[in-house]
């Protein structure tokens, strides 16, 4: 969290994250370009520019695969959440690696010609009606442009300027970029002489990304079905049964699904209950999977914090989220499903008094 925009607010965890990333990428490129050619069974070495082009291209592809796996992995197992925290640096670095790949393509395949290389890039192959022989470079350009836009707008300034819904929708284009990259590879490099290892890596990437998203989708659907009772069981006019007190650990929450796009997090803390929307104002992170730290709800994704009674970020921060009214009958928690305007104060329910 920050009240002013600076390029990067460094902390030890971000430095460690970026260091691991840089070491892994450097190791990949070093082995690909320097070490592995010594083990190639070739008559004459592959051109240096083509070798580096392949190294940077395949590295960007693998990085994009990991980026897309982090989200579902963090949903399936919270231990992966630290990978989510600084994922934007991962994305920016991926865009940079992809740009180096594109530069090698441009200055090798499209160079040494009377035609300007940028003109040649778009005009040399225009057989868009063919599957085999399709200008797969165009798909790579599209993916690179998306990665550039996402990298350029990854800063919190753009999140604040565009608003979370638009920013989120924009950054969902990462899936379009991945689809373009997969087609770029499938219609290009994979159409060459058989390379079972590369083909297997691309297939494994697609299966992994799709499989993890499918598994996460099923988990979310199961979770929503488990909350159906909350939607259906109207115990008292205008109130829903949200659950029992003993379902919630201290300083933790229970998440209640009201509709496909509305979930409420009910927190138990200091002998009290408060309810707020489950979506963080920052990037829609699942607040109900966070904890109460220093008297504030803390988002598990990036640590954004809110007061429990009014959903306002502690000063000097200005974010605010919707709150909800609660009632306690015995040990049963009742929830008023009507969201109050963001930042509305609601007196917490005292567990001791009501129970």
């Amino acid at each position, binding site marked *: 969290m920050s009240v002013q925009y600076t390029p990067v607010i460094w902390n030890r*965890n971000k430095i460690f994250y970026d260091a691991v990333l840089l070491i892994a990428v450097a190791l990949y490129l070093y082995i690909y370009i320097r070490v*592995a050619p010594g083990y*190639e*069974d070739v008559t004459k070495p592959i051109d240096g520019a083509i070798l580096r082009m392949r190294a940077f291209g395949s590295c960007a592809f693998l990085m994009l695969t990991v980026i897309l796996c982090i989200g579902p992995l963090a949903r399936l197992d919270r*231990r992966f959440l630290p990978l989510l925290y600084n994922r934007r640096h991962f994305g920016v670095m991926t865009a940079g690696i992809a740009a180096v790949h594109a530069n090698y393509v441009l200055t090798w395949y499209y160079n040494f010609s009377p035609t300007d290389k940028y003109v040649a890039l778009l005009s040399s192959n225009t057989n868009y009606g063919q599957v085999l*022989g399709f200008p797969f470079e165009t798909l790579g350009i599209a993916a690179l442009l998306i990665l550039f836009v996402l990298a350029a707008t990854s800063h919190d300034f753009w999140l604040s300027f565009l608003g979370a819904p638009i920013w989120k929708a924009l950054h969902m284009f990462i899936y379009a970029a991945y689809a373009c990259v997969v087609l770029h590879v499938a219609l290009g490099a994979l*159409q060459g002489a058989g390379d079972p290892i590369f083909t297997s890596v691309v297939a494994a990437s697609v299966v992994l990304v799709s499989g993890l998203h499918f598994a996460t989708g099923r988990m979310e659907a199961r979770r929503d079905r488990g909350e159906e009772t909350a939607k259906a069981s109207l115990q008292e006019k205008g109130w829903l049964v949200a659950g029992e007190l003993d379902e919630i650990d201290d300083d933790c*929450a229970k998440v209640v699904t009201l509709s496909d796009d509305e979930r409420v997090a009910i927190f138990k803390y200091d002998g009290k209950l408060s309810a707020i929307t489950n979506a963080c104002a920052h990037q829609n992170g699942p607040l109900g*999977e966070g904890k109460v730290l220093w008297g504030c709800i803390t988002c598990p994704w990036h640590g954004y914090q809110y007061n429990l009674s009014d959903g306002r970020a502690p000063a000097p921060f200005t974010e605010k989220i919707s709150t909800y009214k609660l009632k306690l009958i015995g040990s049963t928690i009742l929830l008023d499903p009507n969201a109050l305007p963001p930042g509305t104060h609601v007196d917490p329910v005292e567990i001791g008094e009501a129970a």
Partner: protein
Amino acid sequence: MSWRQTKDAPFYVGYLNAVPKQLVMFLVVFSVCFAGGLGIAALALSSTQNDPGNGGFQWGNRFENVGVLELRPYPVLRVPADGETPARTYMLAGQGKRGAFSQAEKNQDGPVTLRGVPVNRGDLTMIQVGRVEAVEGNAPDFTPAGPVPLGRWKLTGEICDGKCYAGAMRPGRGLAHKACADLCLTGGIPPVFVSSGPVENRNFFLMADQDGNLIGDEIKPLLALYVELEGDVERLDDLMVFKVDLAKARILK
């Protein structure tokens, strides 16, 4: 792990420097696996790349020969027999992705001395033209032989640009190289058909249209694909010329 948060579960907040102890080992193991996995992937992907063959520039074996320049329909140098060495015909290309038409057109009137760099793959040789000078004084009396017809053939293979395939780029064929091949042909580099089956033990053919003229843009959709072509094959000294009817071309895969 359940999505439901519990009191005892470790909770990571990025801007706090203290990572919960339960997560430290997990993150260290993940980091090692991530870096190690990328390293193994790099080794597997890079060390198993396909052999681009033995083509390449022969920088240490500069070309210098006296002969006659012809357009057949692309520029070629016809070199007379010399002792036991029979007459030869060399395909010509300019610097980069440029043809050698201007040099050939300027010097068609008599014998020339041509200097350049050979680009060679097996029995396919393309000369990257450096300097062309008309032979002054006692020019050798040399009339190149006419083409020898070898009949009509249906061949399968790939259309490449003759310079990259000869070794100017390694690899210089395949769909990843298609755009480059396209630019090379546009620049005037001769197209070469690489046949999967030989004709008189030769697998490389300089291409021309069915009337022996330059091929137009109709070749472009067929570049770098596995195709079947039909046409007349001629032998020009040691160079095969495939005069194809592109209207009958079929893309096989």
